[in-house]
Every structure is written in structure tokens, then in C-alpha cells.
């Protein structure tokens, strides 16, 4: 049976390697994405985001201060002390000793002497959101939750627009429709859109692979431990049981007949319903089933349902090669159709509005869905 333990160990190592490589790939793609984001926004946004954290901390201190001050006021009044200045200073000192904050800064905030413009505040919020997206992505890498990754993308895109409006980003956008290919290549929005699309596809797929491997690794680990315990006799309570058994027999003064009967019983009673009994039964069953069916042991150890990822990378590439061009083509088709309506009926203002383009797009989406569904039903009935 040791051979199966070796097999399990080998499988665990191989899974770990695959898991690490998938995670590394995710990190590389995310870092690339953030590098691009960083290149189009002002670094001031990141700094203001950090300032926001300290500002939030300061707000928390102010909240604590107000509670402390209220209690101290009540206590002082109870002791017939009505010196507000002393109570205020004592509260400030106490808070300073607990949190170690800058007293003059805290005092400034408390007296309403805050030098923070609305622009700074907005920038702080946007910077804060940028950092939140980073944290979401860290969580995504660590836990593999795709929803966190999606939230981070949503936050980044929202923040980028805000930063651009505030003049804190340098997004190069050409007029629609693009006049040349260079208009497309140099267009920051196009590059960002492409990167976002790629990252959704690639990171989503890699995260799925990593999650499956992670689950499987844990499963193999659990099974390996219990298999070793069962087959190699590594059961902790074994000694305890035998001590209990010998103690109970030796302490009693028994007649020869009673002793005879007890011997018969004790072997079974001592083990009845214990982990040892169950383990030995399981080990016996695995051995006997293993003799009848050679593949039984590998099945029970999960070695015959190991996830395979030979085609995963290939399917990501083919998915991108099919999905992205088709999606672009269909979108462009929708807009071209909307434009042609506009040129056909130039007197109608409504059909030259973006809302009309959107309606056409929605229509094409619905038609495409119905057509695709119909084809699938017909072909694979």
C-alpha cells in the first residue's frame, strides 16, 4: 500500500506546481494591467489614496475623542470641576497616549480648522478607490474569488473616468470614428478596453483552474492523511485503549468463569464503536476490495478524477481568438447599421442620437442570441 502513498505525494507535488504557476500568471497579468493604469494616471492619485487612509484613521480618533470627552465632562461635573479647558486638554492627552496622533493636527480638526479643498477631497476618494481595487485584486489572487476581481475592474474603470475629468489622468482619445489605424493604436481607451477584455478572459479562466486545483489539492491532502493513519496504524488512541482495557481487568477480583467470559468479551467490547475498530474495518475493506478490483484504491484516493489542464491554455487562446473578433465585428455591425439609418433618413434627429445606436445594438444582441440558440437547438437536438 505504500506505493499509493507515493503516488499521492507525487500527485500533490504536481498539483502544487500547477497551482503556483497559474497563480504566478494571474499576478503577472494583473501587474501588467496596473502598470498600464499607472502610466495613464497621475501618481498624485495613489499618494492621495494613502492620505485618505490616514484621514480615515484621524476621523476614527475624532470619534473616540468625542466619546472620551463626553465621559470626562460628566465625570468632572460630578466632581464639581467646571474647567472646560482642563477637561479638553486632558482628553487630548489621553487620546494622544492611546493613538499617538499629532495633537496639534487633531486640535485643528476639532476646532474646525481644516485646510482641505473639495478637489482634494474628491481626489482622495478616487485614490482611496484605486487602493481598494488593489486590495480586491490581492484578495482575488489569494482566495481565487472572481467576484472580487470583477469589483476591482468596476472600481478602476469608474475611478479612471473621474480622474480624467479632474485632469489627473492622461487618457489619449481620438474622435469617433477613427480616421486611421494609428488613431486606434494610440487611443488609450482602445488599449484599456483590450487589456480589460483580455484580463477578464485570462484571469477568469486561470482563476477557475487554480480554484479547481486548490480544491483538489486539499482533497488529496485530506485523503492522504487519513489513508496513512488507517494503513500505517498511526492512531493516537491505541495506547489509551489498551491501558483502559488492562486496567479494568486487573482491578477486578473475578471468578475463573467470569474471567473466561470477560476475556471473550473484552477483546470486542474494548474496541467496539471505537476509532480503532472502524479503522481496522476500513483498512480490511480497502485491502479486500483492492484485491478484487485493482483500480479501487486509486479511485478511493481520488487519483482517477484528477483535473486535467492540458487543454486549458489552448481553450483560453481559442476562446479569445473566436470570441473577441466576433464580438468586435458584431458591435461594429450595430454601429454601422445605426449610421446607415442616419444617412438614409438625415432629416430624423432621433436616429442620429447615441440612444438610437444603443437600441440597434440591443436589437442585434437579441437577434444574435435567438439565432445562436436556434442553431444550437437544430444542430444538437
Amino acid at each position: 500500500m505504500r506505493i499509493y502513498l507515493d503516488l499521492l505525494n507525487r500527485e500533490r507535488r504536481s498539483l502544487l506546481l500547477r497551482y503556483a504557476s497559474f497563480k504566478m500568471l494571474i499576478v503577472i497579468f494583473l501587474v501588467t494591467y496596473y502598470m498600464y493604469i499607472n502610466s495613464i494616471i497621475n501618481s498624485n492619485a495613489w499618494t492621495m489614496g494613502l492620505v485618505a487612509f490616514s484621514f480615515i484613521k484621524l476621523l476614527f480618533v475624532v470619534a473616540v475623542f468625542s466619546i472620551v470627552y463626553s465621559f470626562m465632562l460628566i465625570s468632572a461635573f460630578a466632581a464639581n470641576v467646571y474647567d472646560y479647558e482642563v477637561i479638553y486638554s486632558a482628553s487630548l492627552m489621553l487620546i494622544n497616549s492611546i493613538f499617538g496622533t499629532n495633537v496639534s493636527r487633531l486640535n485643528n480638526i476639532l476646532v474646525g480648522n481644516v485646510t482641505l479643498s473639495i478637489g482634494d477631497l474628491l481626489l482622495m476618494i478616487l485614490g482611496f478607490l484605486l487602493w481598494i481595487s488593489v486590495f480586491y485584486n490581492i484578495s482575488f489572487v489569494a482566495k481565487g474569488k472572481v467576484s472580487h476581481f470583477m469589483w476591482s475592474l468596476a472600481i478602476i474603470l469608474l475611478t479612471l473616468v473621474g480622474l480624467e475629468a479632474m485632469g489627473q489622468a492622461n487618457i489619449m482619445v481620438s474622435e469617433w470614428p477613427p480616421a486611421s489605424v494609428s488613431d486606434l493604436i494610440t487611443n488609450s481607451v482602445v488599449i484599456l478596453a483590450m487589456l480589460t477584455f483580455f484580463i477578464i478572459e485570462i484571469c477568469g479562466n486561470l482563476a477557475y483552474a487554480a480554484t479547481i486545483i486548490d480544491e483538489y489539492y486539499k482533497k488529496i491532502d485530506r485523503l492522504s492523511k487519513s489513508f496513512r493513519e488507517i494503513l500505517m496504524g498511526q492512531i493516537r488512541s491505541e495506547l489509551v485503549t489498551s491501558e483502559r482495557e488492562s486496567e479494568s481487568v486487573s482491578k477486578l477480583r473475578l471468578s475463573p468463569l467470569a474471567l473466561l467470559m470477560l476475556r471473550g468479551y473484552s477483546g470486542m467490547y474494548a474496541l467496539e464503536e471505537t476509532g480503532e475498530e472502524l479503522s481496522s474495518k476500513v483498512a480490511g475493506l480497502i485491502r479486500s476490495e483492492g484485491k478484487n478490483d485493482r483500480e479501487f484504491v486509486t479511485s478511493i484516493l481520488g487519483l482517477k478524477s484528477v483535473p486535467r489542464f492540458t487543454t486549458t491554455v489552448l481553450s483560453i487562446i481559442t476562446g479569445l481568438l473566436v470570441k473577441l473578433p466576433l464580438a468586435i465585428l458584431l458591435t461594429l455591425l450595430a454601429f454601422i447599421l445605426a449610421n446607415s439609418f442616419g444617412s438614409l433618413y438625415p432629416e430624423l434627429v432621433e436616429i442620429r442620437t447615441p440612444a438610437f445606436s444603443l437600441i440597434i445594438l440591443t436589437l442585434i444582441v437579441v437577434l444574435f442570441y435567438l439565432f445562436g440558440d436556434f442553431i444550437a437547438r437544430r444542430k444538437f437536438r
Partner: protein
Amino acid sequence: MILKIRITNVAGIYLLITFFGFFFALSLFQLKYLLSFLKASGVDVGFLFPRASDIVTFAPWLLVFSGILLFAFVLSYLRFSMQVRIVLPRLEITRAVSNDRIFQGELTSVKIRIENPTIFDLDRVILTDMVPDTFDIVFGENHVEVNIPAGGKIEFAYILRAAARGVHLIGPVSIMLMDKSSFFATTIEIPVFSEIRVFPSYRDIKRLEITQKTMGGFLPGQHTMFKLKGSGYDFHQLRQFYYSDPLKLIDWKASARLGKLMVREYHGEKVIKIYILIDTSYTMGYGYRRFTKLDFATRAGALVAYLAQKLQDFFGVMLFSSTVHNFVKAGRGRGHFMQILSVLAEAEPEGVANLPGAIRYLIDYEPRSCFLVIISDLESDVGAIVEGVKIALAHKLRPAIIVPMSPLFEIPPPRSPFRQIFREAVMIEYMRRLNTISNKIARFGVRVLPATPQNIISIVLESYVRAKQRMIGAI
């Protein structure tokens, strides 16, 4: 097969981004009007958003980007729905159970094999083989999260411990399918079932066997209890002649040798006919999980059947409540014992006890005298119980009634004084009712034996041994 495809929260956020893009693009087109309106109204936001007018150029690009995202989503959905429609119904699932007839507490292994014969990959499948809670999974796992490539197959196995007696179904196999991007999910249950028949625990029988072994193959007192002196073929003893003895019993050789008349005595084994009647009314299903009154009753029944088989007696079983659910006519032998175990495994609590009906049914099939072990909580109508006893006695059926005392089986040991008082009160009320029934039945010379979880097995055994000693139901 109609399958519902769920859109996950990941897809929700994706769509949020897409529709936000559309919404934002449309808003941007109106932004220049808003800005000029604000300027005309005397509100200048230029200091806050200096490039507000520039981002209007984003609008068409945003529309295109959102459109691409939306089409990509639809394409993903079409691919997934195709997977669901084509692959899931064609999955070949087989389950192999190593032993489908086991005793309670014993183990069996289950192996599941899933094959994907189609040309499509299954990206992410969470397979769960549904196991009822009457089994414990002691090794391996009944679920797996995996991908099954086109034409591929997977196998997984696990070991079950039968924790409760009965006829149980393993299955169906639940499959949760998700796409690679975790956008869509669907769940389906494939109706692949396997029946496992779990006989009552063999533990009590094993104990009896061990006791037998330590006593040199006999049960305590068996050699004195179950022999009938005076008839049979086995030599018992020589004794002096009494005038009442028939002359044919005189051993002339021994008389000549000893110089006085000696009689040769023989003995033969008593054989009785016993029926185990188990009340399977719904109240018998109460008690701790996997240790209900009915579970104890079936364990006791199995033990009596085993003992009867060992001692060459005829034994049968009946499960009854409102009607007779199962009846096995008295017989003997190993095969008959296994049949009885199989019937005991099927006992399920349902309906209300109808003892007279059960006795009448028995009389139809067994018109001759026999001994009945009735295991019932007697929680049905008192008059009906008494009537049942009367009918039995009128047809030479001698019953002994073993009553599992409900409060002791159902109410957990008290941990607080309040619960102690509650338990005491329940016990007092219960005993008052039981005494009333006992007194009514005792008038006919029938014993009602109250049993606790600790002694129910021994009480049932004792009543059997008593019947054997007194030749009740002897053939």
C-alpha cells in the same frame, strides 16, 4: 429535459460594468449641455472638473467597449447553454456498490464512474453522490470538483458505514456545472439509484456468539433448560424402576447385572414455534436518531430469531401497524433467518397499531398453538390491545408483551432540575397508564414487561427462554 441556467454574482458585476458603460456613454453625450446650462446658471464646475468637456469624446468609445463586453457575454452564454443542452443529458453515470446487503454498523464501498462521450469539454463540474444520513462516510469523499474533457472519464469512490437499519437508496447524482469564467451555473440531478438493505445490528448476535464460544459451544444453562426427559432418542440415565413406569422402559441387561429393576431414560430437545410481532406504528419511530424504539425492537427481534435458529426452533416475524406490512411464516434454518433479517430491515414507522387485526391475520396463516413475542409501546387504544390479547389466547397463541418505556427512549437524560422534574412528571403519568393496561392484560395471565434501552434485549431473550422452559408453543 428543461434546465435552468443561473447567472452568478460574477456575471452580475460583469453586466454592471457593461450597463454602466452604456449609461455613462449616454450621459456623456448630454454632459456638454449640462455644463453649458450650469455655466449659464452661474455655477462653474470648471475648477473641479477642468477636463469635463474633453471626456465627452469618450462616449462613442465607451459604447463600443460596452457593446463588445455585451456580445462576449452573449457568446459565453450560448456556449454554456450548448454545453448544458448537449453534454449533461449524455453523461454516462454508473454506480457500483460492493455489498448491497449489510448489517448495521458494517461497511460497504461505493464507486462512481462518469463518462463524457460528447465532443465538448465540461469546464467545471461539482459532482455529489447523494447519500442519505442513515450512512456515515468513513473514508473517501462523495463529491468531487473537476473538469471532464471531451471523451474523458473520471472515477471516485468512498466507503460507507451503515448507521441505521432499513432499505436505503443511494442517489441521485447531483451535478453542478459552471463555465470557466464562473458566469453561469446550472444544477441537475441524474436519477441513478442503488438500493442498500441494512439489516439490524449484528453486534448483539456477535456478543451471544462470543459468550457461546467461551462456554464451550453452549449458552449458559442450555444443557439443562431445553431437554425433555422421557422421550426422544438420546440416552439420559439409568434409574430404579417405579411401579408407575411402563414395562417397556425396563433395561433387562442392566437389571440382571445390578440385581434390581432398572429403567432406561431418554431425552429429546424441545422445539417451539415462536412469532416475533413488532409494532411499527408511528410512535415506535420516536427516540434518539438511529436509536428509536423500533430500532431496538428490530435488534431484539433479530437476536431472538438468531437464538431460535441456533436451537432449532421454528420462528416467524410480523411487522404490523394499521395493517400487516410484512409477514414471514414460521420456519427454520439459515436461509429463513436471513429472510427474517431482510424483513426486519424494512420496518418503517407509520400508521397506528392495530393488534386485533394483526392477530387475526396471524391466525389465518398459523392456526396451531405458538408463542408470540409482541414488541409494542402500547400507545394505541387500550380496548384494542386487550381485545387483541383475548383473540390470541382464544386461538392458543400465548403472547408476552414487551413494552419499550417511551419516556426513557425519547426524553434525554436531564441536565437541569427543571428538566428532571419534567421527566419525573412524564414518567409518573406514563407508568400510571402502563399499569392500567398491564392490570387489564394480567387478568388473562399474559405478562407485560416494561423495557428500558438498557435491558430491552435481555428482556426479550428472557421471555423467549421462559417460553422454551415452559414448553409454550411446543410442537
